[in-house]
């Protein structure tokens, strides 16, 4: 049986919406989901699994209607989904009594529910979140009643507060595949026949790396999994090393070159490091204009040689000031900053005198 396993689509999320280049990011997330359905229409699979968090939050009625419409356009594909921690079925949720299209199997129970799909000889198992956090290991002790069928567990969670998962225990239930959601980074575990599909589109700046879905084929003989890159944009990290002679414009231009090389559609988290001229102010807002830049972290260090400064100023305030920091085994970020500010002020004051 061919299937596509996705999840953590987070429809309704609008990451980076304050950035000029990302005002339509929310729509992009919808569009990618639509694109996936269209792809299934062209290259059909028997089953589409959505392992929770289809929505970023409680879906609006019209949103569920849109999604169900999309499902109705692939009537030959069984769509199996459950609610995750983000779109947990709370009171008044439109999930409650929504009438899904015929090809949709909504695993909407609080407890593990098993639904047989005789025409595929498949039995899917799963549950839905009714609250944001579940600390019980709901997936660890499931009993598969008909081992002759292809048994698939649709699981959402895997951390302490969201249904902790003991892979070994889950595997012991004898599933032919465990389709997992919640962790946004794709990860295939062939040994235990499990996989996190990752988010279809990255949802926040911490979702660094490639994103897409898992295409798989499963029968009683075996399991074949393949990660397929599908996201329109992905988050990437850039580490840029500053030198004491660099200028703001130079930093911007060189970062723009890197963006061109790595794909201008992608979204970047920039970290500046290295030594800067102590009197040079890095203009973060300028660098942010260089392209799809999510954040600029300035970890540069003023180009001071504190050891030398200390040696030269042992018996004056500067030396005494520096001493406390360079003798402490590890500086906290605050201490480091304090050192820079104090040193700069004292040095400036000394220079003034000369």
């Amino acid at each position, binding site marked *: 049986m061919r299937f596509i396993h996705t999840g953590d689509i987070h429809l309704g999320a*609008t990451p980076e919406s304050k950035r000029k280049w990302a005002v339509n990011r929310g729509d992009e997330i919808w569009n990618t989901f639509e694109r996936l359905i269209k792809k299934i229409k062209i290259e059909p699979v028997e089953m589409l699994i959505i392992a929770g968090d289809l929505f970023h939050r409680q879906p609006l009625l019209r949103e569920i209607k849109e999604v169900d419409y999309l499902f109705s356009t692939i009537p030959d594909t069984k769509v199996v989904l459950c609610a995750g921690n983000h779109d947990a079925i709370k009171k008044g949720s439109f999930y409650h009594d929504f009438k899904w299209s015929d090809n949709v199997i909504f695993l909407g129970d609080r407890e593990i529910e098993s639904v047989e799909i005789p025409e595929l000889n498949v039995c899917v198992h799963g549950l839905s979140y009714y609250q944001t956090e579940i600390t019980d290991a709901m997936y660890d002790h499931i009993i598969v009643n008909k081992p002759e069928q292809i048994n698939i567990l649709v699981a959402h969670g895997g951390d302490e507060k969201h249904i902790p998962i003991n892979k070994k225990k889950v595997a012991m239930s004898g599933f032919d595949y465990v389709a997992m959601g919640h962790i946004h980074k794709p990860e295939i575990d062939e040994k235990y026949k499990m996989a996190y599909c990752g988010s279809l589109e990255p949802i926040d700046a911490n979702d660094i790396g490639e994103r897409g879905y898992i295409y798989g084929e499963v029968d009683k003989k075996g399991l074949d999994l393949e990660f397929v890159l599908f996201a329109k944009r992905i988050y990437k990290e850039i580490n840029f090393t500053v030198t004491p002679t660099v200028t703001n414009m130079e930093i911007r231009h060189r970062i723009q070159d890197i963006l061109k090389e790595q794909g201008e559609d992608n979204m970047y988290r920039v970290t500046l490091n290295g030594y800067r001229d102590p009197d040079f102010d890095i203009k973060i807002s300028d660098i942010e204009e260089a392209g799809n830049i999510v954040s600029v972290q300035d970890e540069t260090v003023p180009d001071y040689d504190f050891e030398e400064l200390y040696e030269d100023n042992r018996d004056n305030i*500067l030396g005494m*000031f520096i001493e406390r920091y360079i003798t402490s085994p590890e500086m906290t970020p605050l201490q480091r900053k304090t050192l820079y*500010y104090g040193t700069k002020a004292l040095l400036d*004051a000394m220079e003034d005198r000369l």
Partner: protein
Amino acid sequence: MIIKEIQLISFGKFNHKVISLQPGLNIIYGENEAGKTTLHTFIRGMLFGIEKQRGKASARDTYTKYEPWENSSNYQGMMRIENNGVNYRIERNFSKEHKVFKIVNEDLGIELSQQEIEELFEGLDESCYYNTVSISQLGSVTDKELESVLKNYAANLGSTKSMEIDMKRAFADLDEQRKKIMAENKIGEEELLLKSMDSAKDELEITEREQHTIIASIEQKKEIEQHLLVRKKELSSLDAKRLEELAKNNERKENLYQEMIRLTSDVEKYSASLLQIQEHGTKLKEQLSQKGIEDNDTMELLTDKVLNKSNMPIVFILLMMACLGTSIGFIVGNFPLIAFRQYWMKPAICMGGAVVFLILSIIKYLFNRNKKSKKLQAIKELRLTMDKLDAARHEEVYVRRQLDSKEEALANAKEMMKAEEEKELQLEDYSEELRQLDSEERENSEAISKAQWILDQKKEKEIETEKKIEEITARLHKIQNAKEEIAAIDAAKAHIEEIAADIRNNFGKKLNERASYYMGKITGGKYDNVSIDANLNISINSKRALIASHKLSKGTVEQVYMALRLAAADIIFEKDKKPILLDDTFAMYDNKRMGNTIKFMAENMEQVIIFSCHTREKLMADKLGLKYKLIKL
């Protein structure tokens, strides 16, 4: 460091004046105007130079004051010093046109580099010189001023150690950074942001509550919907039964109706024929009554009368019989028959008579019969009429009976119809209720849709508010980061202040110790505890009480002042003692203390140079048997 020789080539009133000094006590004596201050200024000038100031100030500045009246290019001098056993020569030309400054190592005959000069002076700069080794009398300053001089003096000494870092400048730099960060990150808006955060959160809670209310009402309505559906189902099935009943009833009614129509027409028909029959009967009756027959009896009587009048002509038959009998008698008596012929006359006549009578009677009979038959005919006709009347009467009875029965049946049918209708009315009618249920359901489901629509709106509002909160959070985050920077700046400031205080304290402690030591020596042990507290208040701890500086005598204050300077010089020039220059310092001292001081200094200081316009110091030194060099100006 010891000053061995000073040579004023041309300085103020002096020209080519050479003064040798020795280690230990030197007393330079001169009356007023002799040039003590000039000498003092010269030494300072040799060490630090004398710069001409610009503009108006230059008219009365030191440079101008000591500029030689002639040949200002000779505005120069030389000073020999010894430091750690090495001899140095300081050469200076103060003239602004021919400025020269060099220090020569006389032992090696080489000029010192800038760095070597700095090393030689070991942090002795002009301000330091004023604050330590050069001690003049405070004399003219008032108590208050003196105290503040002391305070300033201690503060300057304390906060910067040997190296002067402009603390104000450093703090201003940090403050400027702080201000910049505050402005760039709009830290001032934090409170506003927190407030709007609070209100956004309140808004969120309100929408959530509103949603809960709406959800509850939707659920309630859905329950109602369920009830309505159940009730509707019940009623529908009841209504279906009713309709079935009704259908049957209608069929019965239809039947009855049909029958009623039939019966009605029967009744009409019978009524009509009854009328006809009655008319007919009346006509017949009229006919009969014309014939005088009123009733059956008269008819019977009439018939009987006709019937009883025999149509036989009895007379003629009797006569015929008689004739026949006679003839028979004749025959029978004359018998045989053959004889008859013979005898036929007699019988024949009889016979003939009989035949005549027979014919007569036949004629008569025929005539009678005709007459009777006519009568009978009439009777017969009457009887027929009577019969008809009879029949008509019978028919009337029959028809009447039929009519009655039909009418009865009709009445029955009507009765039944009424019963059916009543029955129909009795059947419960649910349609009204159903209609009402329908409209209730419609209203309810409309209300549900509306509530769901509102719920969606609320949810959208919630999303909006959440976004707002996110935005505020991001800005607060930025502020938080900026606050970290500010915390770092504040920490740096605090740390620098702390170090300054540390230095001050440290210095203060040492200063207290050393000053106490010197004070003890000067006062012969009366005061041996000078203290400068954190606020730089100077006080003396006598054996009886702590005395603040402003309560001390002027002389004692002068002594404290000296003790502090000596102490400061001790601390700053730990390794290499500097010469101590005392400029009329003892003016306010009593002899005892002056003696103590001079003795102590002569025995303990590397070099002391006392400038004085009095001979007290010399006399005291003589009295105490101290070795000294006297220079008379």
